[in-house]
């Protein structure tokens, strides 16, 4: 019995380490394009550089949202389906905080909402805010869901809005065009100029395209298969 018990403990420990490393990778990998962006901008350490850090990090989180929503088999080997869903439902809060700070820092150093690129960014932020808030209110399973008062509000909103769980989830797909909007915002940024920053820019565009395609593939063909 002893060797089996030892093995089980080791397997558990290995799983635990794998999960830790996966979370670490999830939150550290956005720094790879961040480094490319900051170095290519050559700004030094100032508010503008910080705005780049927050903006690029937030964008990678947006891409990750689509990737997480596609329930990738690779990730499901490392984390449980519940953990993937939890990551998908909690990281938007970080995304909003980073996106909002990015915008405030840009405004602080004198940038204005006078360009198409900035307006697209604002629009994407507002749509993400509404999308995330409505998901939180209507169908996401969070710590709030277990509270009676919140459940009552949710039921009330769903009834008055004539919504079903399926309809609310379908509405959440509006995040896909919003993802394309934020991609346009990033591509139009001066820091994404291919001449100065080919690697950083390519990373972000490819990661967004791959994440969106993964999600579309999941929605169109893979949902049932992966669910089993």
């Amino acid at each position, binding site marked *: 019995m002893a060797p089996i018990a030892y093995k089980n403990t080791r397997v558990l420990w290995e799983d635990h380490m794998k999960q830790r490393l996966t979370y670490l990778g999830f939150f550290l990998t956005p720094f790879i394009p961040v480094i490319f962006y900051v170095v290519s901008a050559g*700004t030094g350490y100032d508010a503008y550089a910080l705005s780049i850090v927050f903006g690029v990090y937030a964008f990678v989180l947006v891409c990750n949202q689509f990737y997480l929503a596609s329930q990738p088999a690779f990730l499901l080997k490392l984390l449980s389906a519940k953990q993937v869903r939890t990551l998908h439902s909690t990281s938007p809060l970080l995304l909003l905080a980073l996106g909002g700070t990015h915008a405030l820092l*840009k405004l602080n150093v*004198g*940038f204005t909402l006078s*360009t198409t690129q900035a307006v697209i960014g604002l629009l994407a932020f507002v749509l993400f805010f509404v999308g995330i808030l409505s998901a939180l209110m209507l169908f996401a399973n969070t710590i709030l869901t277990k509270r009676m008062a919140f459940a009552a509000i949710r039921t009330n909103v769903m009834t008055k809005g004539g919504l079903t769980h399926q309809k609310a989830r379908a509405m959440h797909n509006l995040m896909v065009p919003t993802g394309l909007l934020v991609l346009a915002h990033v591509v139009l940024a*001066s*820091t994404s100029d291919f001449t100065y920053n080919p690697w950083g820019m390519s990373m972000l565009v490819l990661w967004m395209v791959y994440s969106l395609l993964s999600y579309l593939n999941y929605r169109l063909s893979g949902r049932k298969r992966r669910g089993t």
Partner: protein
Amino acid sequence: MKKQLTIVLLIALTLPLTAQIVPSASVDPKVDGIFSNQEYPVVEQLRGMTMGYALSGDGQTLHFALQAPTKGWVSIGLGSNRMQGAHIVIGFDALTSQTISEETGRGHSHSPSRDKIVKQQAIKESGNTTTLEFSVPASLYAGGSELRMILAYGTRDDLRSKHSTYASHTIPFTK
């Protein structure tokens, strides 16, 4: 009395320094958006652009002019050989209206500057060329041994589109 004397001495020492950083024109350039012959004692050709600069007769003002082969925006950035950190004076002549803005270079972009240093400014489009002229207090840049700058122009009448040509240049001070 001693303090006042020190201040007078410091000013007296500073004046000749600022007065020598770049050549002066016999007559101070007229900031009117027209790059006239002999208006600037130093004229440089940089990637199709013509730049002139001069120190005013009293040594207090630095005059700059940039003529570029464009109907769009024209710009001079002072204090750096790249956009980051440069104090950028950028403008365009939309014929019915002229726009000139002082901006701070940030990475590969720029945003309106909080510090306004330009004393006089003018921009004029004539044929296929646009000329930007402006002046700034010489004391702002007299501290070093050179003045680094960037020059650029774009094809559109705005302040945000990317340059079509740019050049960097360093003016060595003669002091």
